[in-house]
């Protein structure tokens, strides 16, 4: 039996006298993909980078053996590592947008590894790059190299980064959460292309991720890490289907959203808490009720007291803008927002303190939403003093109650926020909103920046609190499975328009707007082999169709578009009992399309 292509044994990495990776061993047979999975702080990226002989400043490899082919990475000097990196081992980072130099062309950067290592001349390198662009299905492969990073989308940049990594025919490719920053529909395409390109190149690969479902598609083997310790390692199917380790089971459970009961119908169908009618908003000068850059067009919905509305859409769909418009941070250009039966002023001006108190906004990123100069107590006491006039001992007591409510120890109150973990910060972020005693909570992607397990706990907390305190919630997310499990009503935004809206039961009927269908089909499932079968028959019916302000925005990507109708007239709004959608297809036609 020959030795595996890549072998790591007893790897220990120390930082500040503490082992951040502790005695980790695994092996990768040639041409296979091993996934390193874990939460942030599990040491998965640190382990992956060690395979290039790299540690972050302050950390060092203090023990163990790393072998690629015949080379002992841990024994290589600086010169040896330089010759290795980018040539035999290459790296694909999480955010391609941040990894490309904005002032150089794509081609110059993609062929750089070849030129640096003197493996090819410029002409030869460019030919190779163009072949890779084609293999990665990039648009106009002949000319894309002349462009600059800011002219390309996130998904395209991620694929170009793969081209850069694969151009030297490396033995090992390290992929560090390469699709985490992408929209779910883009992620599917990128994953497929990555998988094909890696298989074709014959390289072994390490795939670092926190997303089990993605890993299930990409990896042959899975290694589960936690706090730098390897918990379980084995073939992907075995680990996913019959996990031996308790922690692996926790991870798998957290990845599946728990279905939550629908909020009980409030007695006698009381007046709606929030009603949004025909809201148009955007940036730039407003002319005839339409801003120069419209982000939201004609959005309407109604929310009952204590109910939950899920808003789904990809980046740029206007979902965060919707929260800002309701909160008054971005004044709407047209339409009306009624809250508790009273019309809300468009901007912040003219709103009463009581109106401010009753609508609270929770931002996605707690790192930027909490003032780093303040302590936890300062942050939580401000709304108490501002809305309720609480000071001194009364305020301190309420802060402690709030900390109990969000399950944080009371002694955290005196600490500055910058020392807290991501999950703790997000809890404080939530507690600040709760301190106001709101009737409506606007949650903007509150779990996106968190690990699966931590995010699931935050969701649990929000769900529990809104039930106990009777707070209505607008829950904004890009994750359709979370929203479907969590919310009473669902609203799907595409290009700033509501393309589908309905109750959770209505959503379960299985008939959907083509975009909603695409979103649902793009959520990776946990069983291996899903990737190969998804997206069949999803090619756009009318590629290159016009994008008109009045036409369906989804038209250029729609697999069931009707020539002569969808590209001529605006899509009509269909209504059924508890749902509505914006499409040329009626319910019967959509149902038929589902079965195709």
């Amino acid at each position, binding site marked *: 039996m020959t030795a595996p292509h890549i072998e790591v044994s007893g790897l220990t990495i120390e930082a500040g006298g503490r082992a951040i990776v502790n005695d980790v061993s695994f092996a990768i047979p040639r041409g296979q993909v091993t996934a390193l999975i874990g939460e942030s702080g599990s040491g998965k990226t640190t382990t992956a980078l060690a395979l290039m002989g790299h540690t972050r400043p302050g950390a060092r490899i203090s023990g163990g053996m790393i072998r690629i082919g015949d080379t002992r990475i841990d024994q290589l000097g600086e010169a040896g590592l330089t010759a290795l990196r980018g040539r035999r081992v290459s790296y694909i980072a999480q955010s391609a947008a941040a990894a490309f130099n904005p002032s150089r062309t794509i081609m110059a950067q993609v062929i750089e590894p070849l030129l640096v290592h003197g493996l090819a001349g410029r002409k030869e390198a460019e030919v190779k790059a163009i072949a890779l662009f084609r293999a990665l299905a990039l648009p106009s492969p002949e000319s894309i190299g002349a462009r600059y990073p800011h002219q390309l989308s996130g998904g395209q940049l991620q694929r170009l980064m793969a081209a850069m990594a694969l151009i030297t025919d490396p033995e090992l490719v390290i992929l560090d959460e390469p699709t985490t920053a992408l929209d779910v529909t883009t992620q599917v395409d990128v994953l497929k292309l990555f998988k094909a390109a890696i298989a074709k190149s014959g390289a072994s690969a390490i795939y670092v991720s926190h997303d089990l479902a993605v890993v299930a598609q990409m990896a042959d083997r899975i290694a589960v890490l936690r706090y730098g310790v390897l918990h379980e390692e084995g073939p992907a199917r075995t680990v996913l289907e019959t996990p031996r380790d308790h922690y692996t089971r926790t991870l798998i459970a957290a990845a599946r959203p728990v279905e939550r009961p629908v909020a009980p119908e409030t007695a006698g169908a009381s007046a709606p808490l929030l009603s949004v009618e025909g809201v148009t908003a955007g940036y730039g000068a407003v002319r005839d009720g339409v801003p120069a850059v419209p982000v939201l067009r004609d959005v309407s919905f109604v929310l009952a007291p204590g109910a939950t509305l899920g808003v789904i859409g990809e980046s740029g769909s206007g979902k965060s803008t919707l929260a800002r418009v309701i909160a*008054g*941070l971005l004044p709407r250009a047209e339409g009306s927002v009624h809250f508790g039966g009273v019309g809300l002023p468009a901007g912040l001006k003219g709103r009463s303190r009581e109106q401010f108190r009753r609508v609270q*906004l929770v*931002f996605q990123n707690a790192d*930027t939403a909490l*003032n780093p100069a303040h302590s936890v107590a300062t942050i939580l006491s401000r709304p108490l003093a*501002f809305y309720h006039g609480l000071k001194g001992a009364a305020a301190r007591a309420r802060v402690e109650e709030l900390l109990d409510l969000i399950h944080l120890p009371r002694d955290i109150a005196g600490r500055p926020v910058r020392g807290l973990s991501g999950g703790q910060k997000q809890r404080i972020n939530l507690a*600040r909103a709760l301190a*106001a005693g709101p009737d409506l909570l606007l949650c903007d992607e509150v779990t996106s920046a968190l690990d699966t397990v931590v995010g699931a706990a935050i969701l649990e907390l929000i769900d529990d609190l809104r039930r106990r305190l009777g707070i209505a919630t607008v829950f904004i997310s890009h994750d359709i499975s979370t929203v479907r499990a969590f919310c009473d009503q669902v609203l799907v935004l595409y290009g700033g328009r509501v393309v589908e809206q309905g109750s959770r039961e209505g959503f379960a009927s299985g008939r959907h707007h083509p975009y909603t269908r695409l979103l649902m089909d793009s959520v990776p499932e946990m069983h291996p082999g899903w990737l190969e079968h998804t997206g069949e028959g999803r090619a756009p019916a009318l590629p290159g169709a016009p994008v008109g302000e009045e036409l369906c925005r989804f038209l250029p990507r729609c697999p069931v578009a009707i020539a002569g109708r969808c590209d001529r007239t605006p899509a009509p709004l269909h209504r059924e009992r508890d749902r509505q959608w914006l499409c040329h297809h009626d319910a019967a036609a959509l149902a038929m399309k589902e079965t195709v």
Partner: protein
Amino acid sequence: MSRWGGTLRALLRSGPLSGRIGLALVLFWFAAAVAGPWLAPHPVGAFVDRDVFGPMSARFWLGSDYLGRDVLSRLLWGARYTVLLALGAALLAGSCGTALALTAAVRGGWIDEALARAMDTLISIPSKIFALVLVAAFGSSLPLLLLISSVIYIPGNFRIARALATNLVGMDFVAVARARGEGAVHIALREVLPNMVQPLLADMGLRFVFIVLLLSGLSFLGLGVQPPYADLGSLVRENISGLTEGAPAIIMPALAIATLTVGANLLIDALGAGKGRR
């Protein structure tokens, strides 16, 4: 500011040597400025030596000047004018510039535009000429010197503070405060200002050095502090004829200006570096 104190403590414990030297020099000159007149062996204007440009001796530690006055005493008095005037002007320039910058950043719109253009106008006037014209028009006095040197350095501080504040105003925590219904004053003082204190203090230190040099320049031209009192700059000027003899009367005040400004710069650099590491 406890955080600032913490930074200083960290600097003393583990900071770079240059930073500790800077701190020592700055503290030395502040002590001289505060306690100088009590420490000075002779009155500031007293003619005590029959010799002029006398060498260092046991009686006159730093020699005597062009009129036979004790250089050490004059230096101790001069440090008081230079250091305290420059410190006052730097604080004044810093607080005015920052207050205007916060107004501009939080309010935005036309207020921001108007303030920025006004500052551009001010910055376009050559600072030395501006100072010379004002001194010529109103005659030299301490309040006027204070006012001139702060007005000259307000625009620079405004620009830096406005750049810092504009970045901070775009942060989510400010959006949260706005959505909570907070007024502009709360946002400026409680949300934005605490996050820019550190770079602003470093900037103020830099302005302090510039003002020391400006005041010394003005005094060298005879337009600064008037005799018999003198700041470090006028000490250099009045003893300029001793340059050929290499008299301590001119070397010592020049050295004083150099150590004060270099010390302040070293200290600022060390504090800035300490922040960058965190």
